[in-house]
């Protein structure tokens, strides 16, 4: 519940902080509506569309309505997939508006004690500290390896949780051991002639739960001719914070990362998670009002590139034979990779270059899968509706492999496959893992 006083505070901050020009830039043509998953899944409710949300933000800033529970609800229900941005002829930066609005609401709202405690633990206590991330994932590994997982699944303990959470627990990847997570390289040589020097952004979750994918990514870069710097001082990108109204913590993470990467002499900073990449590439906006950091942020963001882009740029798919055993593959876009980093053709081109893999484009591959960070946990009803539609399109491709380019999407697609009972004939993989497999396979 927001109190009247909190609402007044929120309203004042909307007036002060929301970018009026950006709000006015939306001329309400409605061209964004068909691209919005929540608009479609809510049964075409304008309040759950980008145009509606911007109109609500503007109405709060203009003092026409109060930022009540309903307004907050429509903003909460936004996936933040930003599919509305590339289709907006006026070029409204919806993502920036949403982030600002969420930050204002969150900073002025007194959460209930348990929520506060949880937010503090997750946003401040866990994600910013890579050693604690390792511990957490290490615990997961302990749980999986000791038979505790088998026991909970057998006893039906997970049935106490909502169905999708129980399924999600099942699809979590096998966690690496604490030792594997701790002994990470900081510098790697190319395995062929050196063509570029790049830095690798490891990511908090990617370097723990998805360690194998990070290893595959590094190997691909080495094979392409990259020497790689992996600075130890780097931290979580801050996306989770930025999207959840914890902008200050996000800024702290940004500064730490800029510092960690700036003196490495790298041509590019490579990411393999669309969600992280999109947040990193936006650091210049995040720090736009900070005189000391603005220019440093700009230099940092200019170097951000997804692994698929650099592989294509370096002709990896031409130089390295890629092959697989006759299989149909399809690709689900990572929203942030596509809509913010503007990377959509590189992953497709790479997949189409694999001999033996039949690439089948999925209908509406450019539409969100409903993962959206932690959205699938906190907004599970909408998330599952979106996932159900996504799975229909996935099934129509007859693909045995669904390729993704972001950990959240990967888990969500795994969840969809499990939910639909398709795990015997379909799997979801990260593109780096698939490419590494195709590059090292002995089939010719």
């Amino acid at each position, binding site marked *: 519940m927001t109190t009247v006083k909190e609402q007044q505070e929120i309203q004042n901050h909307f007036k002060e902080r929301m970018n009026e*020009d950006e709000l*006015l*830039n*939306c*001329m*309400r*043509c*409605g*061209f964004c*509506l*068909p691209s919005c998953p929540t608009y479609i899944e809510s*049964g*075409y*409710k*304008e*309040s759950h*569309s980008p145009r*509606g949300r911007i*109109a*609500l933000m503007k*109405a709060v800033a203009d003092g*026409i*309505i*109060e930022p*009540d529970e*309903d*307004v907050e*609800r*429509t903003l909460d229900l936004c996936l933040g997939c930003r599919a509305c941005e590339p289709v*907006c*002829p*006026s*070029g409204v930066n919806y993502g920036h508006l949403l982030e600002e609005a969420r930050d204002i609401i969150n900073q002025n709202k007194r959460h209930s004690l348990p929520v506060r405690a949880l937010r503090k633990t997750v946003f401040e206590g866990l994600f910013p500290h890579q050693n604690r991330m390792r511990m957490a994932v290490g615990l997961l590994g302990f749980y999986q390896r000791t038979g505790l997982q088998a026991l909970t699944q057998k006893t039906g303990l997970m049935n106490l949780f909502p169905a999708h959470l129980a399924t999600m627990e099942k699809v979590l990847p096998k966690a690496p051991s604490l030792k594997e997570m701790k002994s990470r390289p900081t510098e790697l040589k190319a395995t062929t002639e050196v063509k570029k020097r790049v830095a690798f952004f490891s990511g908090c979750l990617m370097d723990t739960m998805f360690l194998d994918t990070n290893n595959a990514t590094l190997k691909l870069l080495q094979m392409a001719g990259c020497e790689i710097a992996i600075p130890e001082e780097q931290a979580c990108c801050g996306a989770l914070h930025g999207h959840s109204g914890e902008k200050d913590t996000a800024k702290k993470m940004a500064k730490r990362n800029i510092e960690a990467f700036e003196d490495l002499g790298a041509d590019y900073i490579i990411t393999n998670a669309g969600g992280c990449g999109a947040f990193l590439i936006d650091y210049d906006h995040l720090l736009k009002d900070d005189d000391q950091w603005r220019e440093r942020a700009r230099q940092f963001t200019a170097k951000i590139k997804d692994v698929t882009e650099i592989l294509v740029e370096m002709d990896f798919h031409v130089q390295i034979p890629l092959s697989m055993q006759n299989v149909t593959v399809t690709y689900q876009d990572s929203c942030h990779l596509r809509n913010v980093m503007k990377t959509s053709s590189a992953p497709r081109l790479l997949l189409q270059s694999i001999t033996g893999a039949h690439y089948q484009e999925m209908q509406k591959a450019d539409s969100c899968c409903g993962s959206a960070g932690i959205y699938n946990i906190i907004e599970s009803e909408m998330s599952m509706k979106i996932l159900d539609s996504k799975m229909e399109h996935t099934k129509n491709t007859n693909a045995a492999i669904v390729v993704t380019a972001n950990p959240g999407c990967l888990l969500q697609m795994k969840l969809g496959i499990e939910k639909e009972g398709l795990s015997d004939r379909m799997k979801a993989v990260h593109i780096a893992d698939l490419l590494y497999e195709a590059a090292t396979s002995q089939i010719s």
Partner: protein
Amino acid sequence: MIQPEVKQRLIQIVGSENFEDSKTERLVYSYDATPNFQAMPDAVVKPRNTGEVSEIMKICSEYAIPIVPRGSGTNLCAGTCPKEGGLVLLFTHMREILEIDEDNLTMTVQPGVITQDLIQKAEEKGFFYPPDPSSMKISTIGGNINENSGGLRGLKYGVTRDYVLGLEAVLANGDIIRTGGKLAKDVAGYDLTRLLVGSEGTLAIITEATLKLIPMPETKKTILALYHDMEAAARSVSKIISAKIIPATLEFLDRPTLKVVEDFAQIGLPTDVEAVLLIEQDGPKEVVERDILNIAKICEEEMAISVQVAQTEAEAEALRTARRAALSALARLSPTTILEDATVPRSEIANMVKAINEIALKHNVTICTFGHAGDGNLHPTCTTDARNKDEMERVEKAFEDIFIKAIELGGTITGEHGVGIMKAPYLELKLKSEGIAAMQAIKSGLDPNNILNPGKMFAKDNRKRVVVAK
């Protein structure tokens, strides 16, 4: 405010899940795509069928509650802005294509069907539904019918009006009427179908429509002609028509519009020329080839710098999509974009383009022009800032001059966007007081309590204002 008993009765009809009156839900239906107009409705209702619309209508009649039918809210005349409050009626539950009759070449649809979905469904069966308003990706057919929408293909194929054969509609008293039918000929009484098309929701609520389909043209070719001189482009348009060629599409974009469209679409449009014409011809292969050749010749004679033929359908579609984004793309230039659609006989297009440039200079405002040059329907668009009162006054004066000039050239104040609230003060310019009186007689006959989309079409006073109305 909706009285509690009225609310109860409405909920009884549509179910509580289809009645909304929270501030949030009202706010998001307080606007459409027209800048500077906003008014809150009292409630939002989503009927599931014609019977429910009729029941709602009866209640509105009984309590004299305004009712505003709304599709996707993409109109450009403030036609769905609930100026006098009341109910906004949504058709999100009535979005079925009921039938494609391949023997009679008709399609029967509910009002909530998205225009593009309908066009696609027709094309899947080898039929063609030509009206293609720029918002067709999201606009509804109900909205198109109420506004009598045009589009890029209007020149050769006409507008929505030319494709509506029959309607089902609910009158202000709740009566359900059916007009026309799957008929090529039908003179049984007044042509109520034509009357309701373009009536902007002021005469009845349209609940079903039977549309005419035509066979899909065999081939299509698209060209882009570039000019260093706007008026040369406009002259080409008149010459093409007077050479007895009617292209399927004949669109005009000036330099500033080209620039913003290219910023958005990034398809390699030229941004260093003063104007381009986007021209399409469809039909049998030989005819298309011959026409395109002749059109290219005319353009070259009129000093086109280059005339390029689109090599693939994808390239042609990219050009069309880019053109459709023109208005919204212009919003990149300034906080407020106000567009008009003054229309002149096609022979006067060069004169009108010239006049618009002079008027912009005279009032010191920026006007970008694009539009359906082939049918004389231009969209002079003013890039301005609603917060700048002084400039808004000048914009107002410029538009008044444009309207007067259009009428003087034998044209009209609006070609395809409708009157709504926005152009109501100027309607008399076109119709004279006698014309307005005749229309008002129809309105009061069908809607004696003035509950159907009140405040639209007829201005309360004749203070001429399109942009500084409030």
